[in-house]
């Protein structure tokens, strides 16, 4: 009786899996038909042409607002944590809450840093469509570069201050964020609990990125088929997906062989 149970649950799982595949195929069929209709739509093409000039400055505005809001919030949380650290007598356990706040500046600054790469490229590409001619185009190029440089400098400053505070609260931590060896030094100063947390977080990230890559492949493939975006986006998504999956799997293999 015990031997049959695993087979029944396997069959059930297989049926659910096949059901999901079939449903995905049906949904994909209708999404593809819809994308085909959209691609042929003249109204959409006209709308896009009308939106482009406004989009150039709108994207720049979004770029600026994103930086101000996210970096402002990051600074606020860092200040909170700093005040708590100054009040800490070294004995009380209240510092744990303040310390957990320090992950927010790191999250926000990393998000800003990566988003900056997108916005920098987007503003550059859209600049030629701006409604103010050549002057507007050059102004956008200059502003784009200026915001990018200032933002990256602020990101570095905030991350350095955050890590300095972490090191103040945890003197055993090593590593300078401006150093190329930072990640290696930091990891070597982590104890068993921290390494376990890093491992679990890496696995969770790997699962999320795999799902996101699948969704992005679908979008870039439909874009390639119906909106003539070319194979490059599909290629980029697959490269990221492969790099992530293979590096994770190979790292696990090295650990199993005791070579970590």
């Amino acid at each position, binding site marked *: 009786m015990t031997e049959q149970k695993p087979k029944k649950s396997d069959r059930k799982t297989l049926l659910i899996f096949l059901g999901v595949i079939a449903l995905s195929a049906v949904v994909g069929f209708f999404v593809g038909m819809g994308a085909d209709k959209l691609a042929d739509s003249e109204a959409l093409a006209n709308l896009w042409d009308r939106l482009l000039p406004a989009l150039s400055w709108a994207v720049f505005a979004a770029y600026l607002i994103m930086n101000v809001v996210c970096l402002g919030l990051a600074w606020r949380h860092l200040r909170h944590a700093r005040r708590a650290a100054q009040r800490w007598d070294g004995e009380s356990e209240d510092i744990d809450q303040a310390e957990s706040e320090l992950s927010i500046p790191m999250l926000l600054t990393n998000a800003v840093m990566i988003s900056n790469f997108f916005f920098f490229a987007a503003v550059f590409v859209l600049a030629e469509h701006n409604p103010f001619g050549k002057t507007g185009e050059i102004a956008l190029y200059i502003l784009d570069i200026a915001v990018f440089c200032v933002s990256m400098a602020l990101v570095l400053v905030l991350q350095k201050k955050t890590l300095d505070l972490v090191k103040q609260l945890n003197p055993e*931590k090593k590593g300078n964020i401006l150093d190329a060896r930072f990640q290696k030094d930091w990891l070597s100063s*982590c*104890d068993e*609990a921290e390494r376990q947390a890093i491992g679990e977080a890496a696995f969770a990230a790997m699962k999320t990125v795999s799902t996101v890559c699948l969704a992005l492949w679908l979008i870039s493939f439909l874009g390639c088929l119906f909106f003539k975006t070319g194979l490059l986006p599909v290629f980029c998504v697959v490269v990221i997906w492969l790099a992530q999956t293979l590096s994770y799997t190979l790292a696990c293999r090295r650990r199993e062989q005791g070579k970590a």
Partner: protein
Amino acid sequence: MPLVNHLKEYRVRLGVNQQEMGALVGTSRQTISQIERGDYSPSVTLALKIAHRCNARVEDIFEYEEDEND
């Protein structure tokens, strides 16, 4: 978690704070805090180090309670 610990009592008896305890056993203050809260179960090596520093047996500091489902 099935592991019940009395680390805080032993630490207070020793007269050290979490940071000092961490330094004594080669781990971070955060890990000591997580162990005391029951959010982390130490490895055998770390548990032995802690017991050694507290002049106690591992079983005195960490108790394993059987889960009802086991």
